[in-house]
């Protein structure tokens, strides 16, 4: 797919988010183009979900901007073009799988046959008439994913969609994400499982509200001189912490002098 034109569909510019009196994201700047599967990786509590919420426009932002297709995140014009899968499966427990997907399909103007196709793509056709309450955790999460892909949004923002799935399903879902990206969509997938890094076209490594690395999986391994993504991530965190401890009080940009000098 060399001829896919890469645009920056999502532009995050100096984003800062505070939650509960703490800074959860400090000064995030990045872009997410169409045609790629971008992995947002980091440990639990690193700010992945908060960044995702800012991109879909449901997060109160302290500073900075998030622009999607040239419009501020959450604008009326973007609703229906952005597919958001929340971290906990946000489907109705007291409805069947099919009823859930049909409802979310109808909300974005998709048809019943689109709903059937979405169920097929997440391999839940056999459970279509089962109440979500009776599904396993992994099945619920796939039902939730079906509710996102059913509207064929231009941007898919998926918060930990592969957690708790067996290896076969994980492989199939990553194949689905790549198929969606190859179709010219923007796909952002978060995970706290470092092994999933190798399945992405590009990685954003988040640690304590900052982007620790922005690289291809191969680039990350080379840069950290590590055999696998998990050790690469650990090496990068150690390096960052050593820098933080050695650098003294003036190390990080963001002290009073730096802040005043910045735009």
């Amino acid at each position, binding site marked *: 797919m060399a001829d896919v034109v890469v645009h920056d569909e999502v532009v995050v510019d100096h984003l800062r988010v*505070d*939650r*509960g009196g703490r800074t959860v994201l400090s000064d995030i700047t990045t872009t997410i183009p169409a045609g790629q599967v971008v992995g947002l990786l980091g440990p639990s509590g690193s700010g992945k979900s908060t960044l995702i*919420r800012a991109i*879909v*426009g*449901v*997060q*109160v*932002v302290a500073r900075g901007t998030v622009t999607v297709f040239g419009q501020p995140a*959450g604008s009326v014009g973007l*609703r*229906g073009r*952005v597919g*958001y*899968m*929340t*971290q*906990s*499966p*946000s*489907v*109705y*427990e*007291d*409805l069947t799988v099919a*009823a859930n997907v049909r*409802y*979310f399909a*109808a*909300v*974005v*103007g998709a048809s019943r046959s689109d709903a059937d196709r979405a169920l097929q793509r997440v391999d839940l056709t056999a459970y279509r008439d089962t*109440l979500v309450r009776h599904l396993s955790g992994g099945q619920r999460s796939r039902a939730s994913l079906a*509710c996102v892909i059913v*509207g064929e949004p231009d941007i898919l923002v998926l918060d930990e969609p592969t957690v708790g799935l067996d290896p076969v399903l994980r492989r199939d879902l990553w194949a689905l994400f790549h198929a969606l990206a190859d179709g010219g969509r923007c796909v952002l997938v978060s995970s706290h499982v470092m092994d999933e890094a190798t399945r992405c076209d590009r990685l954003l490594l988040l640690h304590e509200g900052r982007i620790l690395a922005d690289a291809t999986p191969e680039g990350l391994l080379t840069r950290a001189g590590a055999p696998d993504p998990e050790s690469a991530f650990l090496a990068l965190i150690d390096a960052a912490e050593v820098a933080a401890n050695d650098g003294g009080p003036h190390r990080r940009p963001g002290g009073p002098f730096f802040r005043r000098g910045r735009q």
Partner: protein
Amino acid sequence: MNPALTALTCGRVLRQLRGDPRTIGLLLVVPCVLIGLLAWIYNGTRVFDAVGPALLGVFPFVVMFLVTSIATLRERTTGTLERLLTTPLGKADFMFGYALAFGVIAVLQGTVAVSFAVWVCGLDVKGPVWMLVVVAVADAILGTSLGLLASGFARTEFQAVQLMPAIVLPQFFLCGLLVSRDALPPVLGWLSNLMPLSYAVDAMHAVSSTTDPGVEVVRNLGIIIGFTVAALVLGSLTLRRRTP
């Protein structure tokens, strides 16, 4: 607001309720049991004829308030509301969808409760019985809309449950059921005029005590509908798309 999306949400809420027959059973049976209990307590006196109609207005209001505030809180905590707010579904579509769905349930509940009170418990009604049903349904939708508005101020289940006594009980005390509204101290009488449940009870009294209550009922219904729409609009304005 988009009528198609509102209807869609209404249908979804009804489908959820249909899958929960026990809740529907409770919604229909509990008011009847309470009314039956009262009729029995006041057996042989005129008290039931005096308070019965008012209670037919109060029960659906209280029940729908509770059910709605829990239902919307559930949408919040499971993330379905957050997801919906990123779709073309408007906040008003969400609010009015819920109000419509519970309105349908209210028609069932009102019909059953009024029929039980009149034909089983022998409630003496001078006006047309169907008007009692209409007022009961309006009360139920009022309860739903206030529940939707109130749930916006609750972050946890504990808070949501306590909003019921906080918002419902003062209205219950001042609606004319315990002490007639014109016998209240002036300040309380004035407060009573600000509370929507008072007009519901006035309408019920009008139906039960006069043979031609049409004008009085329409006037009170108009006020109830006004409160309902105001609560729904305010509810959709206070529903935040972005949260901290």
